[in-house]
């Protein structure tokens, strides 16, 4: 089925989409029988060297609950200057600017090669990027020194107009004011008291001062946007901040023998989120948490400060012996949701030999699209290089990061969307194309992805809604449109639209076609994501059993075998590798926790849930390279993605 291979490859290259099935079963029943749901891996910002963005607004369908964007699949009446929406069949007039179109003069979005197209749109004044460093100062001297250097170095990597802020924490949380001359100021918060966003802003003096009531008093000098005090353009505070970072000292509070340092990570994050929430809602911002140990006090604490009580292990969790787990998780989830709603992402750079509470804090990154980096020390090249890579640039010399994205999915009537799995949260937008059957983050057709990079990939799951007795007519095509609105790292607002379509096929008559349209790599990853998603909330064995049953059912459906003769079992080429992937998945750290700490599991899962197909497959089934003197390294275990 070289043709399907090529088709898949071509589609991936052009649209960043890989479907589990490239022919869709025409009824709901058939679809269920296929075991692997109709689903896809979608990489919203797939790097496309050949895709210059267009500098105008997309044309939307006029129907209020559709708003689909004009795409190559639409039928266009050039003479009447009318286009028909391929999702709702609404006939829309072109806007006046399209008056000159004709068959030979088509706008880009109508050309088939532009099934993925990017628009640059004007939406208010551009807002600079915001980087808020949240730095743990309960570190060993050496670690702190290394971290300080990395941070100072990072200043040179930031765009000059980016706003930067600094929060340090240990027993207390300090929000450093960056605009001051002569004396360095910081606002200090107790590490144990949770404050509402309003309180935080009040305490930081960010509230609009009440109208001066006392006459005779000189009016307070007009503050030049109060947030400026904590978030300053890099080019203005470069020197100041470098000095400030240089003067950072380890937390001065004494740590008695047998105790952990008191670390108020929870409050520090809460303040970071509150500060951004109050000052720059719905603006691209990165909260970068650098921590060298578990939160030990206040809300979000993961372990007490007594060294004799070790941090929770999988064993403790299974025995329901992890005292702080639920509370802390709940706390960080609430925090992550707040940040995500405002389009702010949270990175966690955790460098310590012991666990640092990633299990509890992972949602901060998972829900907001932030990075998680786990290392042993800030003084390792692993951290230093990884950290630098965060600021890596693309061929346009622009950051490989996009902020505050919303991803909207539109489907034709035969399909409904069940959910997404990836670094996103639901925006609770119920539309006609939302299925009641939830898979992953569902019950919505829109998701917020606070931070995207070119490889960030979401798994999207769909459902065929046509009943068995009223299947889709032969020859029809189902279409899905992905609309990704985001803030580009150069502060432009952009909209990337990807419209894909697949043929419907009758499962009874065309089962071979469907079978050969199976993308086993994509399917393996899609199933793996479902499995890992379940593993987050269910017991490990249940997930494995579920995976096994899925595999068995698939083989039952497509395998050819003689009863009671195991040796006769055959799978077609398009499915032949799938069981192998499942085998590796079963024993991967994504599903097995043995010999991994909860933090490590969280870390692996976090990465697995956002990588593109190739990376995911490698993670499922590691590649063994063999090196020899006589040639380039060879992969010993064949995996098709690498081949």
């Amino acid at each position, binding site marked *: 089925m070289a043709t399907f291979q090529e088709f898949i490859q071509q589609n991936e290259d052009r649209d960043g989409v890989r479907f589990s099935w490239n022919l869709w079963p025409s009824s709901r029943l058939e679809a269920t029988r296929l075991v692997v749901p109709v689903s896809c891996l979608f990489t919203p910002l797939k790097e496309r060297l050949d895709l210059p963005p267009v500098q105008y607004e997309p044309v939307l369908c006029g129907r209020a609950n559709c708003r689909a964007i004009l795409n190559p699949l639409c039928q266009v009446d050039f003479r009447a200057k009318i286009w028909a929406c391929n999702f709702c069949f609404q006939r829309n007039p072109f806007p006046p600017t399209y008056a000159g179109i004709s068959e030979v003069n088509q706008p880009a979005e109508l050309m088939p090669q532009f099934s993925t197209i990017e628009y640059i749109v004007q939406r208010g004044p551009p807002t600079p990027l915001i980087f808020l460093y949240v730095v743990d100062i309960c570190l060993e001297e050496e670690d702190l020194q290394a971290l300080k250097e990395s941070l100072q170095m990072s200043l040179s990597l930031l765009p000059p107009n980016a706003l930067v802020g600094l929060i340090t924490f240990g027993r207390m949380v300090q929000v450093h004011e960056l605009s001051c001359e002569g004396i*360095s100021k910081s606002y200090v918060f107790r590490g144990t008291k949770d404050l509402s966003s309003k309180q935080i802003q009040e*305490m930081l003096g960010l509230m609009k001062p009440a109208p001066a009531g006392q006459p005779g008093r000189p009016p307070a000098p007009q503050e030049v946007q109060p947030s400026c005090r904590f978030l300053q353009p890099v080019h203005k505070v470069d020197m100041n901040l470098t000095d400030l970072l240089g*003067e950072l000292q380890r937390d*001065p509070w004494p740590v008695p023998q047998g105790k952990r340092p008191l670390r108020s990570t929870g409050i520090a994050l809460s303040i970071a989120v509150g500060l951004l929430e109050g000052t720059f809602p719905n603006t691209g911002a990165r909260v970068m948490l650098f921590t060298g140990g578990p939160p030990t006090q206040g809300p979000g604490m993961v372990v007490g400060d007594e060294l004799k009580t070790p941090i929770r292990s999988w064993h403790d969790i299974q025995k329901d012996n992890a005292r702080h787990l639920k509370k802390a998780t709940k706390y960080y989830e609430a925090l992550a949701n707040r940040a995500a709603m405002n389009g702010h992402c949270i990175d966690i750079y955790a460098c310590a030999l012991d666990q640092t509470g990633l299990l509890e804090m992972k949602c901060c990154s998972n829900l907001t699209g932030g990075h998680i980096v786990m290392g042993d020390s800030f003084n390792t090249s692993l951290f230093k290089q990884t950290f630098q890579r965060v600021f890596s640039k693309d061929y346009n010399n622009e950051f490989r990061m996009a902020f505050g994205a919303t991803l909207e999915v539109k489907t034709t009537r035969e399909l409904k969307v069940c959910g997404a799995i990836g670094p996103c949260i639901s925006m609770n937008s119920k539309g006609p194309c939302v299925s009641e059957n939830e898979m992953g983050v569902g019950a919505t057709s829109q998701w917020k992805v606070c931070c995207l990079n070119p490889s960030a990939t979401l798994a999207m799951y769909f459902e065929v809604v046509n009943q068995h007795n009223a299947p889709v007519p032969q020859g029809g095509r189902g279409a899905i449109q992905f609309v990704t609105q985001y803030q580009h790292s150069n502060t432009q607002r952009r909209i990337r639209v990807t419209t894909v379509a697949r043929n419907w096929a009758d499962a009874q008559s065309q089962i071979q076609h469907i079978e050969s349209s199976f993308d086993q790599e994509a399917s393996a990853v899609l199933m793996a994501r479902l499995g890992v998603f379940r593993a987050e909330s269910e017991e490990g064995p249940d997930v494995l059993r579920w995976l096994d049953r899925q595999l068995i059912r698939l083989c039952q459906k497509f395998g050819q075998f003689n009863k009671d003769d195991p040796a006769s079992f055959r799978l077609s080429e398009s499915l032949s590798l799938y069981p192998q992937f499942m085998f590796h998945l079963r024993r991967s750290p994504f599903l097995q926790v043995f010999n991994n700490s909860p933090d490590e599991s969280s870390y692996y899962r976090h990465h697995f849930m956002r990588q593109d197909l190739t990376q995911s497959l490698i993670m499922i089934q590691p590649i063994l390279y063999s090196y020899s003197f006589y040639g380039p390294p060879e992969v010993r275990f064949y995996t098709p993605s690498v081949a």
Partner: protein
Amino acid sequence: MSQQGYVATPPLSQAQPGVSGYPPAFGVPPSQAHFGHYGSTPQSHPSPPTAVFKSAASSGSSMPAPPGPGQFVTNGLHNGVSAHGFPPLTSAPSGSAYPPTSYPRLAPSSASTQQLANQMSAMQMSGYGHGPLQGPQLTTSSVAQPISQPPPPASGCPLTAQAPQMGPPPPVSGQPLMSQSPQMGPPPMGVSSAMGTTATASPMGMPGSFSGPLPSPGSSGFQQPPGPQGFPPQQAGPYAGQMGGQPGFPGVFPPGAAQMAGPPQKKLDPDSIPSTTQVIEDDQVKRRGQVYATNLRGQVPPLVTTDFVVQDQGNASPRFMRCTTYSFPCTSDLAKQCQVPLATVIKPFAVVPKNETPLYTVDHGEAGPIRCNRCKAYMCPFMHFIDGGRRYQCGFCNCINEVPPFYFQHLDHMGRRVDVYQRPELSLGSYEFIATLEYCKDKKPPNPPAFIFMIDVSYSNIKSGLVRLLCSELKTLLERLPREEGAETSAVRVGFVTYNKILHFYNVKSALAQPQMMVVSDVAEMFVPLLDGFLVNFQESRSVINNLLDQIPDMFADTGESETVFTPVVQAGMEALKAAECSGKLFIFHSSIPTAEAPGKLKNRDDRKLINTEKEKTLFQPVKGVYEELSKECVSNSCCVDLFLFPSQYTDVATMGSICLHTGGSVYKYSNFQAQVDGDHFLRDLRKDMEKPIGFDATMRVRTSTGFRATDFFGAIYMSNTTDVEMAAVDCHKAVTVEFKHDDKLSEDTGALIQCALLYTSIGGQRRLRIHNLSLNCSSQLADLYKSCETDALVNFFAKSAYREMVNQPLKTVREILVRQTAHMLACYRKNCASPSAVSQLILPDTMKVLPVYMNSLLKSAALVGSADLSTDDRAHHRLLVTGMGVEETQALFYPRLVPLHNIDMSSEAVPAALRCSEERLSDAGVFLLENGFQIFLWLGQACPPEFIQSVFNVPSFAHLSPDMTSIPELDNAMSKKLRSVIEHMSGQRSQAMKLFIVKQKDRSEVPFRQQLVEDKGLHGGASYMDFLCCIHREIRQLLT
């Protein structure tokens, strides 16, 4: 009785046949027979009284006028007399000094009265045994002459005259030494005080009772009805005249006045009533510059106003402990009967003048100070070593303890340890022990204390210029942080906080290039944001701190913030000290009532409508809740709070100051502060406050010998139980007044012993125990008690107890109690100690003769007088101030010093003699200086010499003086220099830098000055001295009937 006898009865006994039983004991000439009524104690001898009464009557009849003005005159004289009790040489001049002032005025009234007066004076003088000397000099009338004759024998040999008198005391005090040394302070004092039974009759009282239908008690007492009847023709006239002339007192003796016939003739002579300045001066003349050795039990020290040198010989210096009486009654019945409070005012850190020996430090090694096993009293001179020195008996609880081997020493033939003079704890009244770790918090050696400066940088403080002024002053002030004696540098660490409704902490670690500010806005739950770098050694961080102090005024220069918080500030300071594990003091410079949303938020509750109602007390009750809690926490973390207030309106001093009050801090208040005007005053206060000797984390325990115990404590203290006085800090001006009550009988032999032990951390961070021991006499005779009373200490006690009571009871009740108790004390004396006399006579014990003027002043004091004209804050402030005061301060406060300057002797170093605080003493052409320890007024008469104005103010005349001057320019002329040196001298004696007011006669600014004239009728209410005496007299008469 014997004591009473030796002083008071001699004249009596010789004069009276009825009392003749006594004469043997007293060698006083018989010629004074007719003065019987000044002496004996009726209550102890049933028979004498009658005799006394007779004699009184007879004297009355023989000399018709004794009761009247004569009484006062004699009193005045008496002062003089007692002053020169011992050395004849001084007596003459001073004695002669009085008559001119007092007699001439009397003269016009009538010849008979004058004669009487002279006779009275002579009689009294002779009564003292050594007084007679004056007799001859005083005599201006023929009547006096004969009287003067008898004295010579006595005066001729004053010593011998004294000796026989002294005779009786030995058995009691067991210290025959007294009579041998003429220069001894106490004996003469004792004599005079005994005499001091001096009858002093209220001028008004007399006439009233005389002309009236003879009060029944009086008439019954008098066995010779003709006496009273005989008086009217001679006396009614003059007195009636006085009554008429003084309509101001109608309330006092209305019936009397009504019945009094005759036209007004003359105003009552104010000189005739007991004079505080006179008493002070007499004591000064008598004891100034002398060495006061504390080797005797129960000896009465010189007055606080007298300059004397203390030599510690086994009892604590009166600077440390001063008692209301130095002779306790033996039984509680007696104590109750007389109602004289038994109290001592302890100022544990009192400054020891340069010419006295500083306290010795004793180290008993690792075991710590030696203490009685039972009562835990510390080793002191009251421990009796027995059993060859192997054991000792505790003087307090009588427990017999083993002497630890290392402390063993043989006894000499007197039973005293051979090393008694090598060991301060065996020979001195005051000394210090080095405390061991047992005495430290958590058994860890204490850290040196810290000072935290907390500056309110809200709008008003910035605008008034305070912040700038303070910051620049701190730079120099910090160079002079207090240090341990002998230490090169100060161990005190310093920290800085600024605040308005949020707090700014500063990291001033020496390693930093510039200070770091840390803002804490979470005032609801205050905490200290940093540890390292907040409290630093000034020497090490000087450049960073100076940098900070330079920047603070600019940083907040254009602040618009007008709201402040308060308790979070205190809490922050306390938490900082707690975190640093040290004691310390917060200097808070605060501007306004804390209204920002935070714990301890206050609202204006200054409701003037409450004044003079039952609810007036609520104005002074601190707001409870947070403040109460915080005070407690501060004390337990030994955090002392000094509050400098710069309010422009009501700030609820009662509440805010309550924290200072409980933590041993002080409150300073500068209303409507302007840096240019009041800056100097404030800075002087701040300097004094910062540099004064102070101890931290102090616990005081007062132990007593069996039979009585300390029951009540008044002062800037905190008590979590009934015995331990906790003070976050105690400085050299803070005094605790301790009241004692009997719980058993006291023995005259062993007397009453008091040991005050103060455990504290020194400024250098050493833990020490300061011990003050004091032994008092006990007597079963009330006369002894009255004889050794100390009016100044009494006033201190009454002031503190009344001020404490005023938050619990209506002010009216408090005032009534004061009046009643005063009357009761005096009535008890009259009943039990004084010789019988007409009820109409007001008789005051010598030691208490100026008590009424002080009590009246107390009653009129800002806190107690209910007047809507006074700011509630000022009243509350006054109340807080007095609560922590020692005797010297209360004395000055309740009887300010009024000094005339217009006739100042430029050649003399001394401050001119003070005048009585009355408007009558002022003159249009005069210039006066008045000081009360807090304020100093320069009063300029309208007709004061222009030369004076020119030389002092450099303006040509009175009219050129601007009304809002607050300082005296430094001019290079003798007058200016002299004036400034006088002011400086006065300020040097006081705990606070006094604010100078320049008052022009008839100017509006005269009001606060007039308030200080305590003998006059109060501007805001309150009686004049004269009225009050009458009132007291009436009360006494009621009590006596």
